[in-house]
């Protein structure tokens, strides 16, 4: 038995207080592989490595079962806003 998407989500929500969270089960059902996009204030002033460490720590229990965790995005709310804006403003510009 692996880990469910919901378990990953609830752990991250509880520990990271994310303003945006997307968990994708990339294992094809066995629950051993996930891709994550997460936006949290806790990332403020931290390098990518430290951000990944936070996520890894939040998922410490789950990691025992997970083989592959791909953190696609680990952004601060500010960065997230900047990333969203160009997409929105593109059609008008």
């Amino acid at each position, binding site marked *: 038995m692996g880990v469910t998407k919901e378990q990953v989500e609830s752990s991250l929500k509880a520990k990271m207080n994310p303003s945006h969270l997307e968990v994708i089960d990339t294992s094809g059902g066995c629950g051993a592989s996930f891709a994550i996009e997460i936006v949290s204030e806790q990332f403020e002033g931290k390098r*990518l*490595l430290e951000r*990944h*460490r936070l996520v*890894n720590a939040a998922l*410490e229990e789950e*990691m025992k079962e997970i083989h*592959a*965790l*791909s*953190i*696609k995005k680990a952004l601060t709310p500010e960065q997230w806003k900047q990333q969203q804006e160009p997409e929105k403003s593109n059609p008008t510009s």
Partner: protein
Amino acid sequence: MATINLSPLRTSPSLCSRSSRSPQNAPKLSLYSHPRPSLTFPSISLKSNSTAKPRALTITFAHKNLSETELVSVPPEAEDVAGKLPSYAGVYAVYDQNEELQFIGISRDIAASVTLHRKSVPELCCSVKVGVVDDPERTALTQAWKSWMEEHIKATGKVPPGNETGNTTWVRQPPKKKADLRLTPGRHVELTVPMEELIDKLVKESKVVAFIKGSRSAPLCGFSQKVVGILESEGVNYETVDVLDEEYNYGLRETLKKYSNWPTFPQIFVNGELVGGCDILTSMYEKGELASLFKK
């Protein structure tokens, strides 16, 4: 030997030749029928040869005597080399900063080969002379190489150091063939030093170390494969350790996870510090941040 270091803006002779292909009645080359190219006379014959291909004109200008060919400095940045040197087949001679001839080689793509030399031995690859050979046959290339070699040997009495038997400085070694490092002599040999110390020593003594699943020539997981691909494309000298090697790296996975406080593989270390896993390396690669990281 009279060699001139060109200013960066001047083009190489072979580049000039490409734009001067048009004259139809120009002298034809009979380079390959020349039994022994002499030193004093260019290895090109001015005799007209009706059977030669019209394109042979290019060679007439491009592939001159070694001594007559102008020396072109190699740009330090790899991306500039292709703009300055021809991406054609031909012969090339590499000179160090003292304008000492180091190596004469042939290539299907001169610019690409020189780029690789520049990367692997920058101190020996400061400037080059190139001669485009407009004939895809290997024998033609070899002949051009021979004529330059003979000319140099005749002039100096010496074989270029890089062309001496046993010198592999200039031979392109497939980087992936490099062996993966083993941390221990085998799982049944008792370690005198804790595994943690072995890891610490390795990552601090090597500039770039990638702990991957599988070997560098055949990574066993997609993430490790990607990491190897990125490191290869950066052209950086890196070491790999196969964390799945239960014989020579027994116990590495668990110890490394604790050492780096990082739960997954691959793990990439630069200058003794964990950079991260595949996601971080990929992200830095896409942002173009790796080059500066490896320069540190």
